[in-house]
């Protein structure tokens, strides 16, 4: 038996309509997986590319000296694009005024990623251009024009050379990458630098070598170049280069992978259900074949051939559908996604194909192979010979397939095992609880009316099948809830990271006598500013009599050198009150009018990575003098809130003997930037660090990432719905028969629909309760383990989960079985008897 017989049987099955459901779910499952894979892959690529504009390149080498030409030659060999920028601080002069500016010289290739935006007049939106300034001209940032009293075409002196102002610089892509870009920007051509003669031995320079191109080539260059770089030089990509963005991208990537993963699981479950149904409908069929002399091996061959044919067909059609759906989705979404999606490569299509086949192999084949174990006597006694022997194989196939796929998708064994064990544990608990719920439902139902009794009796009678079904419903809902919860947590975390109106400028080096008038100036101009904090450089020299350098050796050689070191120089401050978003986790903050020996409060990471405890006696070295202080508390600091933050804070009065400067941060809208000119002209000695461009870029990227993960969530929701439908379908035969009998006996539509609705709603409710429970546990593991977020219990989930389960399953189930009341009962009774 034999290939041709197998094909013949397959054809007959197809003609009889037996294969429609199996083939459809296979196609839809493969299609969903392909769609999600393709979409996630494109989004991921797009996000990375978009974020690369943050560096104006894919990789950057930065340092204060030029790098060796070997590296540039190597990059050439690898076919990478290159550009160079050189930044330094310099005075620039107009006819009658001067201004300290941050000058950046760029070559003709700059920028490799993203675009420069320029305009003719200051403080307008501007338009993108492809290249930087030509030789012989300079471009100025908007607020430099009024402060120097120049306009487009006027002449500006840098060093000993003069240049006309060519354009007003509105935006440069890599403006935000780092805090060192202080001062208003002047952009010039690299070729003009020698003429200015400002670059002398000993000048403080920052070279940035930009590279862009193929990922593999970039990785190769990085591996090759890193050991050849000088001590000062650093090479990085967008993830390491831009704190905040790297983090967000990393998490988004994990989320997309997780989404893809869950999509695969859901599709697998749908396939398994359809195959199971097909197989159980073929018990009689196989029993008859066996009676007629078919051997178990012959049966295997038949169904394996059938499986291969079906699989190939479904995989090909499914992949095509996936490809088309994904193209369509992108078409529809294009206006919504502010980023350009790269064309899908062949890789994701291959990925979809392979995924489809693995899905089939692990989920569809086992139920089919179970048919081998059917005993021929079933022809006579139908209740005999329900195949159960091959169950162990079924499960191990599915488990191996599932773990393999998850691992392959996430490239993260830890995540895979976490989700898998979470899923298995949830499934075990669920089945026990589900069975218990079903039993109690029956007892309750005995006292209720007819529709209730029918529904609940049916549910309990088919306890095993229903436990299975609750499990599947529950699992599907659980996966959706997990995705929803993680998404919400991620998005909230990102939003909180850069809130609207977060301070976007830092002012440092403020002299003590300027503190009060400056606070007044902020207030008069309606600028929202943070309190002014004194800032003094100092470091810890000893801890409980032990030198801090000794302590570093002990704590940082063991822990691999992570975290802030005890002996490093730090900015110190004092305050009477705990800053708003700091939280004490050990010890106590001092009272507002504390006047005693010096106390300090340490930041959590600093304390933990050096083993500092409340009560430790520290000695600080500040401006060459020693100051003893006792650790009074340990606190957490919200580092990314763009406010002045300190590792070490002293009690009031402790630092009075040391001369200090002050710092603060404040918020300015784009159109208020001219205020900086006022500020700097009144307090010329202080320094302003502008981080507004960086914040803006972070916000853009985060909103894109948020949108991306929401799109994926929708796709997963659709595949979740598919599983529900497949699962309802799988239980349909039994229900059809039951209700046809009821119809025959004269039961009205209302009773039948009522009992169906009650049954599905109850199943949905139980599934929802279990799903909520399971997802809380898994999300706890995910958020603390994988996404490094703070976990909180989600009370709304305990309403949402069961409600979603009840409504969703109730509606889907009832709608799917609506046919029961429309079909004349004879059709069903004759077909199934």
């Amino acid at each position, binding site marked *: 038996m034999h290939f041709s017989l197998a094909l013949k049987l397959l054809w007959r099955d197809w003609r009889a309509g037996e294969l429609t459901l199996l083939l459809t779910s296979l196609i839809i499952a493969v299609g969903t997986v392909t769609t999600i894979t393709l979409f996630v892959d494109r989004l991921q690529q797009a996000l990375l590319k978009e974020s690369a504009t943050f560096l104006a390149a894919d990789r950057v080498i930065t340092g204060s000296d030029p790098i060796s030409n070997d590296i540039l030659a190597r990059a050439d060999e690898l076919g990478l694009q290159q550009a160079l920028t050189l930044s330094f601080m310099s005075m620039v002069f107009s006819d009658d005024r001067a201004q300290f500016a941050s000058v950046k010289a760029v070559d003709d290739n700059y920028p490799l990623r993203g675009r420069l935006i320029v305009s003719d007049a200051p403080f307008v939106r501007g338009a993108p251009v492809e290249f930087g300034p030509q030789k012989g001209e300079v471009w100025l940032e908007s607020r430099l024009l009024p402060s120097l009293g120049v306009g487009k075409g006027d002449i500006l002196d840098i060093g000993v050379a003069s240049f006309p102002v060519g354009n007003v610089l509105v935006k440069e892509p890599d403006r935000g990458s780092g805090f060192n870009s202080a001062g208003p920007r002047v952009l010039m051509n690299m070729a003009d630098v020698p003429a200015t003669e400002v670059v002398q031995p000993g000048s403080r320079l920052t070279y940035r070598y930009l590279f862009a191109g193929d990922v593999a080539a970039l990785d190769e260059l990085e591996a090759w170049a890193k050991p050849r770089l000088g001590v000062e030089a650093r090479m990085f990509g967008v993830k390491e280069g831009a704190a905040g963005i790297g983090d967000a991208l990393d998490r988004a990537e994990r989320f997309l992978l997780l989404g893809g993963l869950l999509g695969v699981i859901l599709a697998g479950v749908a396939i398994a259900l359809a195959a199971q149904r097909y197989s159980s409908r073929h018990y009689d069929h196989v029993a008859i074949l066996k009676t007629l002399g078919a051997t178990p091996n012959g049966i295997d061959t038949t169904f394996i051939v059938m499986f291969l044919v079906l699989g190939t067909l479904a995989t090909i059609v499914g992949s095509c559908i996936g490809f088309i759906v994904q193209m369509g989705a992108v078409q529809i979404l294009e206006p919504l996604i502010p980023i350009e999606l790269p064309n899908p490569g062949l890789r994701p299509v291959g990925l979809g194909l392979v995924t489809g086949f693995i899905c089939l192999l692990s989920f569809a084949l086992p139920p089919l192979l179970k048919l081998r174990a059917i005993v021929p006597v079933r022809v006579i006694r139908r*209740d005999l010979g329900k195949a159960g022997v091959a169950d162990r194989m079924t499960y191990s196939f599915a488990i191996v397939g599932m773990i393999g796929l998850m691992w392959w998708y996430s490239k993260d064994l830890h995540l895979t095992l976490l989700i898998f064990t979470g899923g298995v544990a949830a499934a075990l608990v669920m089945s026990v609880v589900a069975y218990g719920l079903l039993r109690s439902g029956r007892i309750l139902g005995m006292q209720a009316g*007819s529709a209730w*009794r*029918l529904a609940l*009796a*049916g549910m*309990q*009678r*088919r306890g095993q099948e229903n436990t299975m079904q609750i499990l599947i419903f529950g699992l599907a809902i659980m996966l959706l809830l997990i995705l929803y919860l993680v998404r919400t947590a991620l998005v909230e975390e990102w939003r909180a990271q850069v809130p609207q109106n977060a301070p976007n400028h830092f002012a440092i080096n403020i002299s003590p006598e300027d503190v009060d008038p400056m606070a007044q100036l902020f207030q008069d101009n309606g600028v929202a500013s943070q309190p002014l904090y004194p800032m003094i450089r100092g470091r810890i020299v000893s801890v409980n009599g032990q030198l801090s350098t000794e302590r570093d050796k002990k704590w940082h050689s063991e822990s691999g050198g992570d975290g802030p070191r005890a002996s490093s120089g730090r900015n110190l401050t004092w305050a009477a009150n705990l800053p708003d978003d700091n939280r004490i986790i050990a010890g106590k903050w001092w009272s507002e009018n504390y006047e005693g020996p010096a106390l300090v409060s340490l930041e959590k990471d600093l304390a933990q990575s050096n083993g500092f405890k409340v009560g430790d006696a520290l000695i600080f070295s500040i401006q060459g003098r020693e100051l003893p202080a006792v650790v009074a508390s340990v606190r957490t600091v919200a580092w990314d809130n763009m406010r002045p933050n300190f590792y070490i804070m002293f009690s009031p009065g402790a630092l009075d003997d040391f001369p200090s400067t002050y710092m603060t941060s404040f918020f300015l809208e784009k159109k208020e930037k001219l205020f900086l000119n006022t500020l700097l002209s009144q307090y010329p000695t202080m320094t302003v660090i502008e981080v507004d461009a960086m914040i803006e870029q972070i916000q853009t990227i985060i909103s894109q990432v948020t949108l991306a993960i929401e799109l994926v969530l929708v796709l997963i929701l659709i595949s979740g719905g598919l599983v529900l439908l497949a699962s309802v379908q799988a239980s349909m035969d039994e229900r059809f028969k*039951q209700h046809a*009998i*009821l*119809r*025959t*006996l*004269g*039961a*009205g*539509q209302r*009773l039948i629909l009522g009992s169906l609705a009650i049954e599905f709603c109850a199943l949905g409710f139980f599934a929802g309760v279990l799903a909520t429970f399971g997802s809380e546990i898994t999300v706890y593991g995910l958020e603390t383990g994988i996404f490094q977020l703070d976990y909180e219990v989600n009370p709304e989930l305990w309403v949402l989960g069961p409600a979603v389960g009840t409504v969703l399953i109730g509606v889907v189930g009832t709608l799917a079985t609506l046919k029961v*009341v*429309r079909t*004349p*009962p*004879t*059709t069903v*009774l*004759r077909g199934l*008897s």
Partner: protein
Amino acid sequence: MKGIDLEIKKSESVAIVGASGSGKTTLLSLLAGLDVPTRGDIFLGKHELTALDEEQRARVRGQMVGFVFQTFQLLSSLTAIENVMLPSELKGDPRAQEKASEVLRRVGLEHRFNHYPNQLSGGEQQRVAIARAFASTVEVLFADEPTGNLDTATGAHVIDLIFELNEEFGTTLVLVTHDSRLADRCTRSVQIDSGELKKEEVASV
């Protein structure tokens, strides 16, 4: 079905006989309102079945009709007594349980009240089905090969039960069978062949 013209009077017992595939079961389904013909009219009591929709026909069935099938057609999720109670419950009869236990005892299943169908033998299942048919007072009982799945002795017992109860309740009986002994016990039998009524004969009993 071709040119069927058949009238069955109240309290008659009529056997529909014929070869396999001759259309016996189809005719029974039509008479009981389980299905509708493409053309023609069917009346059940004063109800014109062919003018009703599926929902209304279900209501008529619930009110007037009982069934016994060759394959029993019990609800596997309900116990014997629950299966028997079902038709009365559908009618909203508050004494459903009482009536059901009475009839179940009558068919000799007093020790099987709380068994599920798959825990009963074929004969027992058919007796439950008969009890179900008579538990709510019906006017017409349709039986489709009621002994088809049973051995001779059990079959005979089941037949006796049907006729006894039929007598007791004064029900009209329409019976599909190819068992001539069974057909002989009916007041008359009609023969069907390729969808046409061939001859009608009044039984000798």
